[in-house]
């Protein structure tokens, strides 16, 4: 990384520009130093299996608690590894850095046994102490991690992070070099899938302690995953190569993965067409046509597109009016004609595909809790207006952040409400940050929303609408809901726990706090030779099993 060069470069830049502008002499291009000949040529560099995928943008940071977004974690997930890693076929935690783990009878104490052959890229063994340090570092207010809340499962971590407790009270302890003991705040049985998340990846203690910027360059980055980072050109590409010292190296098929930083999906698509990328996203305006192609790959995603009501404002303080709106909007049409990515329509709030302890998916057990129904919607609206003594409905404004697709969806919703309920809705769009701030302050009456799941449990969804949660943003508060959520967090029996969560979802849907629209999915184009890229509904792309045939 070039540091302290800024000043010099700045003025040479100015001078150079000036001279050239005046003199019109011509070193018109020639980028000697950047020409590494690395571009374009596809995987067939001899027998090397090099997968080229698009990362979309430069990673925010490759320091696990700092990155906290897809750009960072799609890379980090393949160059580092946590105590567990989700299995290839199901999003179930499997041993990774930890060989196995024990749980105490009360479900509160987890003891992870770290495998003997777990090593860092600098040759040091991965130790329990590294994990203790990393988890405390995630919670440390000085680290200022945007993902700090993922440490709150650990007893004492939240207090440390909010400044009310101290580091010593965070209950994660390296018992010996390879044994890690963690005491949880609540007996959550999905904790082993929490430690598969990149936010809870270990960092090499000595490195991170001595160099704050250790994750900023290839030379100082110390990793422990299936691949090792070997080249990094800012805003151009990152190259990772197979880590022969990885404990499960024989499973890894690829020799190298090149992540390109191509922000524009249309450009990525062109590169894909030109055989310079193996995997590309699908440009929004080509979705309908390309989704049917043989090269399209659709992965389900734990995430939802929905709308929020402000229950503190008229007319949405009335439950029946909220219900009427929710039932009058046809999510299927929005998916079929606007989004066109074959997304499943929401029939509840919680993501459908979570694995249920009784077998099958969560939704198969819980059943549908929401459907589009114009007749019911009309009756409910009438009922609600009667309850409030309205002759005409107070003015309703649907807000969304500026974006072509959101705009089209908002117009469709406007049309549906007009046709199905005879209600005129105004549309209002603002820039994203402005929109978000207004939504956070519960200033928007009726607004577009989305949520991307972080971990593999219905609690990930339910937690959002507990009273005072920063994700709530509706002004809605319900004692029964809150206590069901709290109770389920204390429940040790998995089936009973799911039952409680299902009851909480029923309360939530009955209250119609949101208009459910559709579940997300991830759509890509993949060349026929690409196999076994794993993308679970939660988490980030897994290339450990990927291959080029």
């Amino acid at each position, binding site marked *: 990384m070039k540091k302290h060069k800024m000043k010099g470069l700045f003025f040479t830049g100015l001078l150079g520009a000036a001279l050239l*502008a005046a003199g019109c002499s011509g070193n018109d291009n020639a980028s000697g130093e950047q020409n590494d000949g690395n571009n374009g040529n596809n995987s067939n560099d001899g027998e090397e299996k090099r997968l080229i995928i698009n990362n979309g943008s430069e990673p925010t940071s490759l320091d696990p608690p700092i990155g906290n977004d897809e750009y960072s974690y799609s890379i980090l997930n393949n160059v580092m590894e946590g105590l567990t890693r989700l299995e290839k076929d199901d999003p179930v935690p499997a041993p990774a850095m930890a060989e196995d783990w024990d749980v105490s009878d009360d479900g509160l104490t987890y003891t992870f046994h770290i495998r003997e052959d777990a090593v860092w890229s600098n040759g040091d063994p991965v130790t329990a102490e590294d994990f203790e340090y990393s988890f405390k570092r995630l919670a440390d207010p000085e680290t200022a991690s945007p993902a700090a809340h993922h440490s709150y499962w650990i007893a004492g971590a939240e207090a440390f992070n909010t400044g009310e407790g101290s580091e010593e009270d965070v209950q994660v302890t390296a018992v010996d070099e390879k044994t890690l003991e963690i005491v949880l705040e609540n007996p959550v049985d999905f904790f082993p899938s929490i430690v598969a998340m990149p936010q809870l990846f270990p960092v090499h203690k000595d490195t991170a302690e001595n160099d704050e910027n250790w994750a900023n360059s290839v030379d100082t980055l110390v990793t422990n995953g299936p691949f090792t980072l070997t080249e990094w050109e800012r805003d151009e590409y990152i190259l990772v190569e197979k880590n022969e010292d990885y404990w499960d190296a024989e499973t890894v098929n690829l020799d190298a993965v090149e992540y390109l930083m191509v922000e524009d999906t249309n450009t990525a698509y062109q590169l894909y067409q030109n055989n310079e990328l193996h995997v590309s996203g699908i440009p929004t305006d080509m979705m309908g046509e390309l989704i049917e192609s043989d090269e399209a790959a659709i992965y389900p995603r734990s995430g939802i597109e929905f709308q929020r009501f402000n229950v503190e404002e008229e007319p949405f303080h009335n439950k029946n009016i909220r219900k009427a709106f929710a039932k009058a909007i046809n999510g299927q049409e929005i998916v079929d004609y606007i989004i066109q990515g074959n997304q499943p329509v929401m029939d509840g709030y919680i993501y459908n595909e979570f694995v249920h302890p009784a077998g099958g998916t969560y939704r198969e057990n819980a059943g549908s809790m929401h459907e589009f129904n114009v007749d019911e919607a009309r009756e409910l609206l009438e009922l609600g207006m009667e309850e409030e003594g309205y002759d005409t409905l107070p003015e309703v404004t649907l807000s969304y952040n500026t974006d072509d697709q959101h705009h089209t969806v908002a117009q469709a919703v406007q049309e549906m409400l007009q046709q199905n309920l005879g209600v005129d809705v105004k549309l209002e769009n603002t820039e994203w940050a402005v929109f978000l701030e207004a939504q956070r302050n519960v200033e928007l009456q009726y607004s577009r929303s989305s949520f991307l799941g972080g971990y593999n449990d219905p609690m990930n969804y339910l937690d959002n609408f507990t009273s005072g949660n920063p994700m709530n943003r509706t002004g809605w508060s319900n004692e029964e809901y809150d206590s069901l959520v709290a109770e389920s967090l204390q429940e040790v029996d998995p089936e009973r726990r799911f039952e409680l969560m299902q009851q909480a979802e029923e309360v939530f849907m009955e209250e119609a706090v949101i208009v459910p629209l559709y579940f997300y999915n991830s759509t890509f184009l993949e060349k026929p030779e690409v196999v076994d890229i794993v993308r679970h509904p939660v988490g980030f792309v897994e290339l450990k099993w990927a291959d080029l045939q």
Partner: protein
Amino acid sequence: MLKYILKRFAWMILTIWVIITLTFFLMHSIPGDPLDVGDSGGSAAASENLRAYYNLDQPLPVQYFSYIKNIVTLDFGPSMTSRSSTVNDMISSGFPASLQLGIASLVFSVISGVALGVLAALRHNKMIDYITMIVAVIGISIPNFIQSMLFINYIGANFDFFPVARWGTWRHVILPALALSSGPMAIIARLTRSNMLEVLTQDYIRTAKAKGLSARKIVVKHALRNALLPVVTIMGALTASVLTGSFVIERIFAIPGIGQYFVNSISNRDYPMIMATTVIYSSILVFMMFLVDIIYGIIDPRIKLHTKED
């Protein structure tokens, strides 16, 4: 002359200071919190800790003075959106690409713009004039991102010689430079043409002709030199905007330049990056204008830079 330069330099500094100050208070007054992590489910405490990390918990005047200090020392600190690097890292790694692309397109637009303009003026109301001006109108009226896509589709995808996107060799420069330069080229061509037409009717041209000078000498030495004055005027602003990269072109061609930061820093409310891009753009702009003033004096001796001292 020296006194004039010094005075202009002082004004330059003052102008930049005013721009920086205005930008600072404007960016803090727009709604939107750069460190709100709530959207990814983050806790309120996490946002508070981040605020402390970036010193945003300090009162505004304190923040203002530390910003001024950072700017004077040209150290903009860590970026709020990309914590793995400082703003200086990001700018210094992106600036060369933007600079190369900018210089290439500037050279191309000036040479072809002036040539087309002169040609059109000399062949006034002939076929060549019309063709040139049609090219110029197309250059101005088709947005460069559309041109880029056409180039990528029809040139990049069909000829191996031109890569569809990305950066690295001189071949990567050609298509984006063409797309970026067509607008300025058209402006320069039209401006040169109309000035040439005017200059060619002047008395001193007739004098030169009467002296028996060759047509080439008249055009190059007498006509063009005067016709270029307005072109030089717009060169200042043009250079500044071309050198600091183009958000759209760099995005479409996946070029690792700094153009993206001008737009993304604002939508991300990345305060240090907003300040850095403001300082860079305004310094280049103000400096180019200063340079243009000096070049005036060189091209046209009738313009006196030091009237008061005479």
